[in-house]
């Protein structure tokens, strides 16, 4: 017994778990507990939708009670949420818009229906309270540093306001009439019309109270936000630490502008979808473990093609940043849809199992053999 380093408590618990597994084999105890209590602690993280509030004509806020395993998020982070749409599980990433310590323990995401968006349209128009969704812990780098800068600029467009709202709502709300938490915040938000501004009431009230400065750009009448205009709207833009979230086109022009000004390190961006820049010829993708072979074109991410064929594909952010979808390419070539970079693998030349590729931003560039 002297060799045992386990405490008696762990041993007892381990034994209990082992016994429970003997009782339920070939399933696991969790498979039965899930039937009774899907949100219990220790279960795969899930949540129950408790309310859905309209925000604009095509955006809603979904209030979710997460399971017992939920850990706090950092304002500005996003969660991955798995929603069963027409019976098919679809994973997407949405920014959290709730304060971290909501009294009822719930979290919220705010979803804008995008054209042909399977999940966003489902959540905006068809979802109802009571449904169970799959969740992942919050993640993401679009957060304020521990030492907060004195002057902050947020540039958002459309649903790009959501992570920023998550940040604003977590500022201390005491001391009405003063700048938020003593920080000088400017928010430049762009939306088609005044009615399309998500959280319009709350933002305008913060502005009216003098807690933030709000600049609304209504693109139907004012045109698209032009980075060259920014100096007029926010004269001290160069002094501000800037966080931007919105469509790829806007973020790209902002990044160009900031690097041209030599202040690229002061700009932080959050992208919702990868920018597909380069496509090419596709090819046959074979998933060698399951023996599935698919004809893929050169513009469709391998992740989407595999899922479409009923494959169980690991997935994550779907925009090439979280590496949750990485699988080994044993043989063949894939193209990175963001920059056209070709990754090749040949048996015996690559390490054990092959070259890891991100399926969410990679399309077939010829015949591929994937170890899945």
């Amino acid at each position: 017994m002297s060799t045992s380093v386990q405490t008696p408590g762990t041993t007892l618990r381990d034994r209990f778990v082992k016994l429970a597994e003997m009782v339920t084999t070939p399933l696991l105890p969790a498979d039965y507990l899930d039937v009774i209590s899907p949100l219990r602690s220790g279960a795969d993280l899930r949540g129950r939708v408790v309310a859905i509030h309209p925000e604009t004509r095509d955006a809603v806020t979904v209030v979710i009670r997460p399971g017992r395993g939920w850990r706090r998020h950092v304002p500005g982070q996003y969660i991955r949420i798995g929603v069963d749409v027409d019976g098919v599980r679809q994973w997407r990433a949405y920014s959290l818009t709730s304060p971290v310590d909501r009294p009822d323990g719930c979290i919220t995401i705010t979803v804008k229906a995008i054209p042909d968006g399977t999940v966003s349209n489902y959540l905006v128009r068809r979802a109802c309270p009571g449904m169970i969704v799959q969740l992942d812990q919050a993640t993401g780098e679009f957060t304020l540093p521990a030492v907060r800068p004195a002057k902050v600029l947020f540039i958002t467009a459309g649903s790009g306001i959501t992570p920023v709202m998550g940040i604003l709502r977590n500022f201390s709300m005491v001391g009405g009439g003063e700048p938020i938490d003593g920080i000088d915040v400017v928010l430049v938000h762009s939306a088609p019309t005044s009615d399309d501004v998500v959280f319009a009431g709350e933002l305008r009230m913060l502005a009216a109270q003098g807690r933030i400065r709000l600049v609304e750009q209504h693109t139907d009448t004012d045109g698209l936000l032009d980075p060259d205009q920014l100096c007029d709207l926010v004269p001290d833009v160069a002094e501000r630490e800037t966080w931007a979230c919105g469509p790829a086109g806007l973020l790209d022009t902002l990044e160009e502008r900031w690097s041209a000004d030599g202040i690229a390190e002061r700009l932080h961006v959050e992208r919702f979808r990868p920018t597909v820049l380069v496509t090419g010829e596709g090819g046959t993708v074979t998933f060698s473990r399951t023996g599935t072979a698919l004809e893929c074109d050169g513009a469709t991410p391998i992740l989407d093609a595999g899922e479409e064929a009923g494959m169980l594909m690991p997935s994550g952010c779907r925009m090439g940043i979280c590496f949750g979808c990485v699988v080994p390419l044993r043989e063949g070539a894939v193209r990175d849809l963001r920059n056209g970079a070709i990754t090749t693998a040949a048996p015996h030349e690559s390490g054990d199992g092959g070259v890891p590729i991100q399926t969410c931003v990679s399309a077939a560039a010829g015949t591929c053999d994937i170890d899945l």
Partner: protein
Amino acid sequence: MTTLQKKPHNPVAHLNDEDIENLGRELDVIREQITSSRGERDAAYIRKIIDVQRKLELGSRAVLLFSLFPPAWLAGTAGLSVSKILENMEIGHNVMHGQWDWMRDPKIHSTTWEWDNASPSELWKHSHNELHHTYTNVVGRDNDLGYGIMRVDEDQRWHPFYVAQPLWNFLNACLFEYGIAAYDLELGKNIKLGRTKEPEFRAKAKGVLKKIRKQMTRDYVVHPVLSGPSALPTLGANATANLVRNLWTHSVIMCGHFPEGVETFEKTSIDGETRGEWYLRQMLGSANITGSPFLHLMTGNLSFQVEHHLFPDLPSNRYQEIAPKVQELFERYGLSYTTGPLYKQVGSAWKKVFRLALPNDFLAKVPAPADAPVADQAPAAA
């Protein structure tokens, strides 16, 4: 039966190549109708069945903790038997066919599922999905024709071993899950060829033995011990439930391909087989069972064996819906749709097991049953 190619009256002689390809195209359309309409209702169906099965199992096992009291024993044993049948048939068999893979739920997926059966899912999926469903009823290729222990076709060579095949069939029925495991391991063939020492076989056998040990420990040690004073009745209940499940699944499986009216095929007949011809072989090589919705559920919808063999990966709850369309195709193409109530199909299959225990020439002295029900001789389409 005799393989279709050797029959005096070939039941597909009236169909030309074009007819058969048209038939295939019509079946493709039926398939497409289902795959494009799979959705929330279907997902809710399988989740409900799994939910009900797990609650029934938990409830039955809980009741069996008090199985010293006869009413508890009866209720618990009945519940556990039904639960085990649902788990193997409507859930396990169908999930492992990939019928629910489209849901992308890792917990209900053919690649992750493990079932309450002696044969590990990996092994079973190979011998069932890849071999049986590809070579259905091809004599010499489809080992499901008699499982290697019986002769169920005139064209399978007689051997004195087969004289006792009614007994083998009965024993196989009682121990069906172990029979399946031995079959999936190709135990007989591997012993005969002296391959039991080969690493590949040993690894598979080890997997099977490990699974059997865990299953037996659960049913015959852990649950009885947990039942305390009710240990022995619980052990008996679990053994009974396993026996009931074995007898039931064996009967249902026999009805799939053994009843009179089902056709078999020559080994060479599938060389260069087209998709249409493959469909035709599945149509002629399978038999259905008529009955109530409860019967369909308890057979895992294998009572729609014809539809299942045409479309093994469509969700089982939809077979009933396409059955009339498939039956209409049979009529239009002048083919016979073999079906009947459970007792009749089981009887028919057993009759064949008895009849073919003896060599073919014995049949001359005993009047053989009609080889196939009279086919609907409607003129072929096209």
